[in-house]
């Protein structure tokens, strides 16, 4: 770990500030990348990691502040970043599956001879580029036949060019197995020894400690600290990530002892293992865990979207008859899914139709729709949820994210469900709507609905939950009740390996 202050500073970011409407994404952040160093960026969701990376890669222009590369100011365009030697690997894979590795590598920079693409030259060039990182890979292999790690490494090879000085990786290990992670880290170590500066974003603290020389902690858009990795402990990092001011915990549990939802030994091949828990009437139970831990999958099994191979799901003591959403709705379950756009909204339809779609039956007589009753359902929800829409015929797609989410909430509230499942209900909505949605959730519970919440935002988890169930790699790693729910205790359970 040869980190020394005298090492050459490749990138110096000074005082970067970037605001989005309602959110201060970055607030006066200073950041350095040195040659031959791995600098790990850590922080909770929303801490500003992605924003910082995107500014470095030239996707965003900061409101103020500057980035200097070797003492020269960098313009905030992807092209300028590329010329300055910044290579960025994004979280989602960007190879074209039905093309060979060689074709993917020369995409947009085809090797031609007399105007024809030369397969031979393309292949030679790919071999040259791959020789450093993946010497044994056949460049004619199709991208879809690559393992996730190989694909990741091909992308790294592709992104690196001769003049690359800095490699930025956003969650590069999220789709890799443990063995593959080791392989990636070997390569990263090699690149580091070649003098590259590496920025590494990860949720996995063990990985961060394994690979990094410096750890930079962001919280709420501010730089908390940037310290040598060997001078700090895991616990200290977690404390810096969540802040010292531990928020007020809900004092009294609202739940009754009437079990609404019972999940028994739920297992789904390779994803969930023996998940058992209850949600009582009037109680808010939150599933917490890292991305990919299996939280959404639990919700999908309960709501009948995905099949499970073992276990039982009961509502009010009665097993759900069939595994499909219609049966789940009939049993009294509502679901506000994680991805509003693809899973919930009917974009071409009005706000009124979007609310009423799950209870068409209630205002249908002899298959005839009764417009007045539908209008009444809408008016009721509009008033209750304070939906801001000019008329009931306004298309949902024209509303703000917060109002769209309220419409989706209204869809389920109007059904008066026994159990309401909310998967990241405040994702992508502004601060004001967030507060309103939290209030609605609490009200629902007070009225006796059992609420199963899935959330990645710890402040929200702390403010709303009566009980927290922590999921890690498809297992329940712990349960927290009342005053034992703290940011620290949650993070410990979620991140330990």
């Amino acid at each position, binding site marked *: 770990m040869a980190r020394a202050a005298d090492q050459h500073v490749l990138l110096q970011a000074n005082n970067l500030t970037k605001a989005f409407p*309602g959110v201060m*994404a970055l607030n006066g952040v200073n950041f350095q990348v040195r040659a031959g160093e791995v600098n790990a960026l850590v922080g909770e969701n929303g801490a500003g990691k992605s924003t910082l990376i995107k500014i470095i890669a030239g996707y965003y222009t900061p409101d103020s502040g500057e980035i200097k590369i070797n003492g020269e100011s960098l313009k905030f365009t992807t092209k300028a970043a590329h010329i300055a030697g910044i290579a960025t690997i994004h979280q989602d894979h960007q190879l074209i599956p039905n093309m060979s590795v060689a074709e993917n590598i020369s995409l947009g920079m085809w090797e031609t001879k007399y105007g024809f693409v030369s397969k031979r030259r393309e292949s030679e060039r790919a071999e040259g580029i791959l020789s450093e990182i993946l010497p044994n890979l056949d460049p004619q292999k199709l991208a879809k036949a690559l393992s996730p790690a190989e694909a990741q490494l091909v992308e790294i090879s592709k992104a690196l060019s001769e003049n690359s000085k800095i490699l930025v990786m956003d969650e590069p290990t999220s789709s890799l197995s443990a063995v593959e992670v080791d392989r990636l880290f070997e390569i990263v170590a090699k690149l580091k020894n070649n003098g590259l500066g590496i920025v590494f974003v990860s949720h996995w603290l063990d990985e961060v400690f394994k690979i990094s020389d410096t750890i930079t902690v962001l919280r709420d858009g501010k730089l908390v600290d940037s310290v040598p990795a060997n001078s700090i402990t895991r616990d200290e990092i977690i404390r810096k990530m969540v802040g010292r001011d531990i928020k007020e915990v809900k004092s009294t549990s609202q739940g009754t002892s009437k079990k609404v939802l019972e999940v028994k030994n739920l297992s789904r091949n390779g994803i969930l293992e023996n998940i058992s828990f209850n949600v009582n009437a009037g109680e808010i139970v939150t599933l917490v865990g890292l991305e990919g831990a299996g939280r959404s999958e639990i919700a999908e099994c309960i709501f009948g979207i995905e099949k499970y191979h073992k276990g039982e799901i009961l509502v009010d003591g009665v097993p759900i008859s069939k595994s499909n959403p219609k049966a789940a709705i009939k049993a009294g379950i509502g679901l506000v899914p994680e991805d509003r756009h*693809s899973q919930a909204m*009917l974009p071409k339809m009005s706000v009124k139709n979007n609310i009423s779609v799950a209870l068409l039956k209630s205002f249908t007589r002899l298959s*005839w729709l009764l417009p007045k009753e539908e209008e009444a359902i809408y008016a009721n929800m509009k008033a209750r949820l304070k939906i801001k829409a000019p008329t009931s015929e306004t298309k949902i797609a024209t509303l703000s994210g917060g109002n769209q989410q309220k419409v989706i909430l209204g869809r389920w509230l109007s059904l008066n469900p026994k159990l309401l499942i909310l998967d990241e209900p405040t994702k992508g909505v502004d601060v004001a709507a967030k507060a309103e949605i939290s209030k609605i959730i609490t009200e629902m519970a007070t009225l006796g609905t059992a609420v199963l919440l899935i959330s990645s935002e710890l402040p929200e988890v702390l403010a709303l939950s009566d009980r927290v169930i922590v999921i890690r790699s498809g297992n329940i790693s712990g349960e927290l009740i009342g005053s034992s729910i703290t940011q620290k205790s949650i993070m410990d359970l979620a991140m330990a390996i």
Partner: protein
Amino acid sequence: MTSLQDFGLLFVILFGGVILSFASDVFATGLNFRNVALASTVVAVMAIGQTFVILVAGIDLSVGAMLALSSVLSVGFTIKQGLPVGISIVLALLVGLFVGLINGLSVTLLNIPPLIATLASMSIVRGFAYIYSGGMNITPTPDIFSQFQEATVFGVPLVIIFTLVLGIIAHITLTKTSFGRQVFSTGGNALASKLAGIRVNRVIIYCYMISGFSAALAGILLSARLDAGAATAGMGYELTVISACVIGGVSLFGGEGKIGAVFLGVLLLALVQNAINLLEVPANYDYVVSGLVIAAAASLDVYRRGLVDAGLKRSNSAQKVESPEEK
């Protein structure tokens, strides 16, 4: 926006009509109008079913073949097998429903893309029409066919009234019933509809059955018009029908469209055909002109949608809050 679009199509038709009435002495005569309307009925009836299918983001290429099969069966069951006319007609319609059911099952349960599934059934159905008829026209049609074809109500041919009534029924089904709402919802976002408890597959299957049924019905109308059961009839009609839907503003992505506008699309295509005949455009240019009109209508539609989307985005960006950390 949508009403403006319908109005636009109506305007094009009226404008074209005015020009034609100057260009041709025959155009603005009652007889010609009657012929244009009569010629539109078969395509219009098929377009009703096709609209349901396209609304759920599908496509039905088998309608031209279904038209032919129904045409030969409805006549042949009586002429060749000696069944009563009523039974023959009902059987032909049932075959239409059955073909639609098969199409719907292939698309939903077997997950075959609609284009491929109905391409296959198009070929199979056409094959059965040839097998049953031996490739020959089946004549004569029972009397009731020609009686229906010639019947008028207050001077208006019954066929035209019949087609309009079907259109009105379809329009009401789409706009006023629970099923219609489920069609739009499924076409707009099938996953979200499923999560809202709509039996999406069932809705899609019903739409293909409606399309099969309306193609079969159109086949019977065609038999009456031609006074024969014709296995070779309706070649390429599927494309005319789909064109009419697209010109009428039915979105090929599903979830958007109106029967009234589709009828205007059918009328526009019939007028183009009429103009080609009246202005004595050489027969070989026929396809080129029709194709150009379809291309022009589709481009106009894309352009209009672009404007609408741009408007949407403008009003969006004013309200919508960007969320920086969303991946």
